[in-house]
């Protein structure tokens, strides 16, 4: 019995390690590749480098454009998060707290965004952003990205707000606290878990977004990091070591962020989407 169990356990761990190596090997090759010469990459993509060359990583870290791309991405992502949290929570609060004529209809209207992918409207979106004179600005990404994320955010916020204790509002109301003030003084501070979950979700989405920036950002000064990365790859086609160093350094922030905020990220990316 215990012998069979032992064998089964070994088989289980072996299988898990096999899958783990399938997951990790490409990433390991990428990180190591940044330390190698191209000749070395060619002969042993997964081997440890003979000498750890720091120059390729250093040249990326010294490139002001690299930091520019990251900064652009950061500012755009923060803009998306703040706008989504504020606009989405405000609307969700109205739907959760106030019953008025047409509220159900407006709520369903705002949820329409859950039905279809972003790409369906990308061409008219490009025309609209261009006609508004927003091409190559942060707003060109922030406004459409936020608008498309609003549906899910409003749905999650409303569900949460409806579960806040009702007596609290009655007490505040009898003390003469109005609806708008109640939103700022009580609803928002009491909702930090859902604000964090949605915030992290929006941040990751925006940080990784490629199609929208690709369409509305044309000048290199405005590029987000995924665009910058593709640009860099185009310029150094035969120099994999530089490209791999670039990839490693640009995904590093995401990995660190993930390890730090794991709980919220997993909740936001899986639970948040499911519980809706």
């Amino acid at each position: 019995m215990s012998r069979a169990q032992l064998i089964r356990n070994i088989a289980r761990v072996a299988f898990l390690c096999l899958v783990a190596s399938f997951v990790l090997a490409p990433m390991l090759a990428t990180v190591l590749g940044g330390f190698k010469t191209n000749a070395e990459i060619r002969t042993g993509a997964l081997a440890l480098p003979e000498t750890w060359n720091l120059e390729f990583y250093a040249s990326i870290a010294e490139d002001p454009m690299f930091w520019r791309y990251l900064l652009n991405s950061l500012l755009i992502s923060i803009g998306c998060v703040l706008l989504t949290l504020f606009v989405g929570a405000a609307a969700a609060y109205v739907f959760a707290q106030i019953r008025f004529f047409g509220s159900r209809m407006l709520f369903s209207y705002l949820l329409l965004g859950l039905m279809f992918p972003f790409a369906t409207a990308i061409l008219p979106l490009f025309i609209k952003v261009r006609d508004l004179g927003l091409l190559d600005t942060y707003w060109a990404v922030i406004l459409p990205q936020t608008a498309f994320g609003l549906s899910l955010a409003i749905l999650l916020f409303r569900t949460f707000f409806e579960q806040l204790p009702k007596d609290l509002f009655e007490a505040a109301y009898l003390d003469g606290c109005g609806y708008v003030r109640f939103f700022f003084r009580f609803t928002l501070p009491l909702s930090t878990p859902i604000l964090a979950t949605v915030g992290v979700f929006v941040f990751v989405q925006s940080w990784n977004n490629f199609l929208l920036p690709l369409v509305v950002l044309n000048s290199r000064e405005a590029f987000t990091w995924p665009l910058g990365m593709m640009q860099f790859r185009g310029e150094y086609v035969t120099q994999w070591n530089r490209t791999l160093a670039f990839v490693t350094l640009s995904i590093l922030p995401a990995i660190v962020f993930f390890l730090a905020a794991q709980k919220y990220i997993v909740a936001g990316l899986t639970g948040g989407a499911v519980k809706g």
Partner: protein
Amino acid sequence: MASLDAARSSEPLSLRLRRGLGNGRVTAVLILLPPALILFTLFVILPLSESGYYAFFNWNGYGSPTDYVGVENFERIVGHSIFQTAVGNTLKIVLISLFIQMPLALVLALLIYRKTPTNAVFRLIFFVPYILAEVAAGLIWSFVFDGNYGVSASIAAAIGSEPYFLLADRDWAFVAVMTVIVWKYFGFHMMIYIAALQGVPEDLIEAARIEGASRTQIVRYVQVPQIKPALIVSAFFAIIGALQVFDIIIPLTNGGPSNQTHTIVTYLYTFGLTRLNIGFGSAVGVILFIAAVTVAVFYQRFFMKRGAVA
């Protein structure tokens, strides 16, 4: 709240209105709701409707559309062999997701759903690809598949064969793409199942075990039926996700070789936007919209009666 509402509804309308103005009910609606409505209408609903309008024109995006062509764009798309390939590729992604990715994710979830330190490490590893940007994942794998420099080059050198360029092979390039898709997304599905499995009451499993059920029987008759809602939701994400694949393709193959690896969105981008055929591209967008809504409605009607996804 309920008691207040009940008290209010017995008051005359004028009184209720005045009270509403007094405590800021009306103001709250007028201040807090419009930003969301305006943003959503301007950047989601309006572009979507415009897609439906532009689709009937031959238009390069400058001036206003005047060259009305009826359903010609749709006819050209449906008859276009590259579009047919793109639709076929999208279906392949759905099939791979349902029959390879989801079973793999389920097996892994069953192996590591219990909360132990080792399991936590494996969970973390398996989830990492999902948080990477699709473009980065695509770029990493284009290195892996590079016959001159990548991991496949090292393997070819080790076994002494000629360099092989998987991504340049008409027949195999899309298999490579699907490998990357499984690599990128199985961890997401696994996390959904893990969350669901942790919610299955331990008593149920214990009871089955006392009744003499084997490990496989417990999985088959207790755990899998219990997490059915999670399986249904994850299949929905797989299908909707397949309709949207774009970022991964661009660094890997950019739709090539000879346009064999397009998906609907890369097709839209390549033939609509890069050539500024706004009318043509909008028509592709309309087709994509219809596909997505059909899937959502069909799915909600047949699988999600209790509304697991809104």
